[in-house]
């Protein structure tokens, strides 16, 4: 049960853990999806910002290119002398500086170089008639500038380029190329990634002229895949708008690129440290994690409560089941008790019916001695059956309570055999049954509970005799095997040619009160015999098997391992004493029941014993004090009011008189158990007789005790005499 409970708990814990994992995983997936959505949104925003910046630049540059173009057209096919004035006027109108350069970047009018690299000059001037070149330096101010150019022809047909100078610093300020609160910045690069317009943002790196020198590829993260630098290079060259994830100057960054349409091959690059882009996402993830933790905690608490409740429920259920079982057991016991009482009522009523009715008849037929005797014999038979029934019930009760104990003693086979033959030969003879006692055993003394062994054989033989009709045979055989380690395996075989038992009954034959339904009417029994035998055989460590066939007979085989007796013990004194000893004796009878007093008195007077009655232990003690010397023995009932028998016996034994110590006290009691006997012995009683009193046994016991007492007195007197009288 406990193992099952632990298994249940383990299963529940596992389920809870799995559910928590499932919730956590679901949340993680959810958070990742949301994060990705955010990232996509943020990168899209970044791309849009960069595109707008590029668009703004494009518009601005376009306007400058258009302005330059118009100035170029003004200068077309004019002489160099006019150029200065034209440019001066344009400068006054527009506010920017204008120059005319040759293909090498030399300012024709100011004899300066605009500082644009040769490569940029070649890339720009040779590609389109109008466009942008840079970065360079304004020939007048020396400031870093970007130039819009337009091609024109001189009067002599030479190609020159009119430039509009755009101060980079002013350009940058007006475009506000700062994002994410200044944590990101934008600037312009050409198709090779070289910087055209630097950022003024503090964290922007102006050391390297090409952004590609600052980039390195990074690893793919759970948020996004890494981007290849080649993709950015391609975007710059092919005027593609895009967003990539790189390490820029050692930091994880998001880089967006958008082409400036009017520039030809320039792009706006926006660089933002990733942590600023994803700060919101991280906050969201933190919140999500908080939510998740709270839910998990609630879940765990709930699970713990459910678990606790489950355990309590299981405990209650267990208790409930136990109560159910106890109730069922109690009900069963109750039913068994009711059934027992019902059966007992029937079984007791049957002989009681005989006793009561026949006793009435005897009273009516008192003058008919023969008829009366016949009735009284039947009453006696019923009495015997009733006593046997009561004894069996008591025995069964003791067995069920576990109060049966074995008391092994030396028991000779000869004595055993004598007991069986003396008991059953006359019985079988009276029923015209042949009794066969087969003795294949040596006369060996065994150490066994004599009473229980006799009880087993007696019950089985009794059943055999009961259920064998006249003319049948009852046999008893004993065999034994070789003695090993002080044990002798014995087999007791009791067979009969009786009515046998049905198969149906054989399935329940060891259950108390079970009787064959087709038992002959004249066979009386409590239905406890086989149950008792089975219990006793089991207690003795043996086995019992039954073979029976209805109409043919029954064989019961009992196997016991009997211990070989290691020393001879003198069997208790079983020699009979002449009842003449009782003649003239005076016995004190302590009995509270008037009827029992009468029975005892009549029985004793029948053998010449005079009786003094005491109604309770106290009277017995007082009576003994007064006339103790006159009594030869005391018959003491155990259960009496005022003072019980045990107390009375102890009191008498404590009296100072010598005869108080030697007078035989015989216990008369309904309690026939060993402990009762021991109790009686401990109280100073000499013998123990069970009710109902067996008169012959009473006489013998009384005679033995009185004779023993007399012998003891004689010895004492002789001893006393030698030592001197008081």
């Amino acid at each position, binding site marked *: 049960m406990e193992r099952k409970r632990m298994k249940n708990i383990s299963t529940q814990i596992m389920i809870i853990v799995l559910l928590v994992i499932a919730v956590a995983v679901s949340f993680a997936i959810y958070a990742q999806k949301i994060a990705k959505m955010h990232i996509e949104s943020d990168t899209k925003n970044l791309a849009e910002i960069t595109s707008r910046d590029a668009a703004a630049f494009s518009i601005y540059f376009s306007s400058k290119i258009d302005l330059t173009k118009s100035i170029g057209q003004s200068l077309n096919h004019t002489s160099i002398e006019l150029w200065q004035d034209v440019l001066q006027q344009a400068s006054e109108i527009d506010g920017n500086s204008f120059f005319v350069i040759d293909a090498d970047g030399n300012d024709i009018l100011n004899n300066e170089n605009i*500082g644009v690299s040769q490569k940029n000059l070649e890339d720009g001037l040779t590609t389109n008639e109008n466009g942008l070149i840079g970065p*360079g330096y304004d*020939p007048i101010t*020396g400031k870093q500038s970007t130039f819009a150019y337009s091609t024109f022809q001189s009067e002599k047909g030479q190609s020159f380029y009119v430039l509009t100078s755009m101060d980079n610093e002013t350009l940058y300020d007006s475009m506000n190329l700062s994002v994410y609160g200044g944590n990101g910045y934008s600037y312009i690069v050409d198709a090779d990634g070289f910087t055209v317009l630097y950022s003024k943002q503090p964290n922007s790196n102006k050391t390297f002229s090409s952004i590609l020198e600052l980039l390195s590829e990074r690893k793919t993260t759970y948020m996004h895949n890494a981007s290849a630098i080649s993709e950015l290079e391609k975007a710059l060259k092919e005027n593609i708008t895009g967003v990539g994830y790189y390490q820029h100057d050692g930091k994880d960054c998001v880089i967006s690129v958008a082409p400036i349409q009017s520039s030809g091959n320039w792009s706006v690059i926006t660089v933002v440290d990733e942590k600023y882009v994803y700060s919101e996402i991280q906050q969201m993830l933190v*919140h999500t994690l908080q939510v998740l933790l709270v839910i998990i905690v*609630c*879940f765990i608490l709930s699970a713990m409560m459910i678990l606790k409740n489950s355990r309590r429920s299981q405990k209650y259920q267990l208790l409930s089941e136990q109560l159910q079982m106890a109730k069922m057991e109690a009900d069963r016991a109750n039913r068994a008790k009711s059934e027992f009482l019902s059966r007992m009522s029937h079984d007791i009523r049957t002989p009681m019916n005989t006793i009561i009715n026949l006793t009435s008849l005897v009273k009516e037929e008192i003058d008919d001695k023969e008829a009366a005797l016949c009735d009284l014999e039947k009453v006696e038979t019923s009495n015997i059956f009733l006593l046997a029934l009561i004894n069996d019930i008591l025995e069964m009760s003791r067995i069920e309570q576990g109060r049966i104990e074995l008391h092994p003693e030396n028991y000779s086979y000869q004595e055993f055999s004598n007991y069986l033959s003396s008991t059953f030969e006359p019985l079988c003879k009276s029923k015209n049954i042949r009794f066969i006692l087969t003795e294949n055993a040596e006369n060996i003394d065994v150490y066994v509970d004599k009473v229980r062994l006799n009880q087993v054989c007696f019950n089985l033989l009794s059943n055999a005799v009961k259920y064998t009709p006249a003319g049948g045979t009852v046999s008893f055989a004993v065999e034994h095997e070789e003695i090993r380690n002080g044990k002798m395996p014995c087999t007791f075989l009791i067979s009969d040619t009786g009515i046998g038992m049905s198969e149906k009954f054989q399935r329940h034959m060891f259950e108390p009160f079970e009787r064959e339904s087709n038992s002959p009417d004249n066979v009386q029994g409590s239905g406890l015999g086989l149950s008792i035998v089975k219990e006793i055989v089991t207690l003795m460590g043996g086995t019992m098997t039954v073979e029976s066939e209805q109409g043919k007979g029954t064989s019961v085989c009992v196997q016991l391992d009997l211990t070989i007796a290691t020393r001879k013990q003198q069997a208790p004194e079983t020699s009979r004493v002449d009842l003449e000893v009782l003649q003239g004796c005076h016995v004190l009878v302590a009995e509270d029941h008037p009827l029992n007093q009468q029975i005892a008195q009549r029985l004793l007077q029948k053998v010449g014993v005079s009786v003094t009655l005491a109604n309770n232990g106290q009277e017995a003690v007082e009576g003994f004090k007064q006339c103790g010397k006159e009594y030869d023995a005391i018959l003491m009932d155990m259960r009496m009011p005022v003072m019980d028998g045990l107390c009375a016996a102890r009191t008498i034994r404590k009296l100072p008189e010598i005869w108080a110590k030697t007078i035989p006290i015989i216990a008369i009691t309904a309690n026939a158990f060993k402990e009762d006997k021991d109790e009686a012995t401990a109280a100073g009683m000499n013998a123990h007789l069970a009710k109902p009193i067996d008169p012959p046994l009473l006489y013998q016991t009384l005679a033995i005790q009185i004779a023993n007492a007399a012998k003891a007195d004689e010895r004492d007197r002789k001893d006393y005499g030698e030592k001197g009288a008081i």
Partner: protein
Amino acid sequence: MNIRCGNRRWLRAVVSLLVLGILMCSIISCNDKEDGFVTYEAEEADQTTLTFFGNINASSKMIPLEELITAYMEQHPEVNIIYEGIDPSLEVDYTMLLSKRLSTGNGDDIFFSYAGYLPTLIEGNYLEPLDALESWSAYAEEEKVFLLSNDHYYGIPMERTVIGLYCNLEVLEKFDLPIPETFDQFLEDCRILKENGLTPVASSQLIPFSGYAYADGLAKIYGSENSQTQVALRNNDESLGIYFQEGFENLSKLLDLGYIDRNMALLHDTTEQAEKDFASGQSAFLLGASDLNASILEENEKLDYAVYPIPVSSGEGVVLSAPDHLLCVNAKSPHKDLALDFVEFCTQRSRIESYVKKQGSLSPLEGSKMEAEPLAPVAQIISGGKAIPSVNYQLTARLQHWIQQSGLEMLQGASPDEAVQSLNAMIEKTRE
């Protein structure tokens, strides 16, 4: 015990707990509702922007400078410094751009200047005096004096440049040639090398080329003790050109004998090709400044070479020393105090030492050690104070520039006498 009743009670408790948890989650994750129309004000950076213009743009040299700028901004979050470095690939003169910016009112708050160009800037009143900088205490007095102009300091050097003769020891060892200590020995080494098919001296148009004449002339000018007096004397007395006559003649010899490839020198206006020739062993000698170290090692990191004094007509070899990358503050800067603070920050001893170490250049400070192994031969001369300053505002501001111009004319075919005449003319013109 009614188990079913107990179960229902617990189930209610469980559901209540879950609902409570969800409510708590909602509260945690719920933000305050925003107003229907959200306005944003344009973020105005609470910062002062300083512009910094310089002639450093190469990656390897730029990083130490950017680190300085970043360090300052980290300490002063209210300041944003924007550095603009001129791209060396552009065919523009840095000093020209600098002048244009300053003259048109577009000057940067802070800028670098060459030592030789400082006087021009001083004349234009473009520069804020730097006398108050505490950083000056780390500079040697005998060198600081050359930076005084009208008793003021207008530029504080970040580096020192040492001009000496780079000798490819592998080539010299191969032909068993000694380190030239005199000009005659130098010519002899060149002859042997020339006979073996090498171009003995790598050159370009830049000043190192004319350094032979410059070194020779300065050796004469600083030839005696009490050189300061003599310098003043010479400045006011006769034409300085005479001191460079012999130097120009030496230069002529190198050209005429083919020890310097005239055409190659004319072709290259940077030292890049000369560095390659030297590093590859095509040439054994290269007259150059100490900042060539890094470039040469980039070409051939295992090259065995050293920098020795420049052999001159008479006397011991000469090592020229010049302050380089002078930090200046625009006199018309609206943020002068901040600019001065920044210059002070950059020129503190520890920062200068770190800066030059990362650059592979030399510290302008007193007592600084030259750790670059190739400079060991000249280190002692410099630490002993025997290096000749190639820039002396007490002398003539643009002498070095004029010598370069004269040398260029010689490359183009002018004779030593003509070169001297040209030099004197330029000096005279300035005095006028």
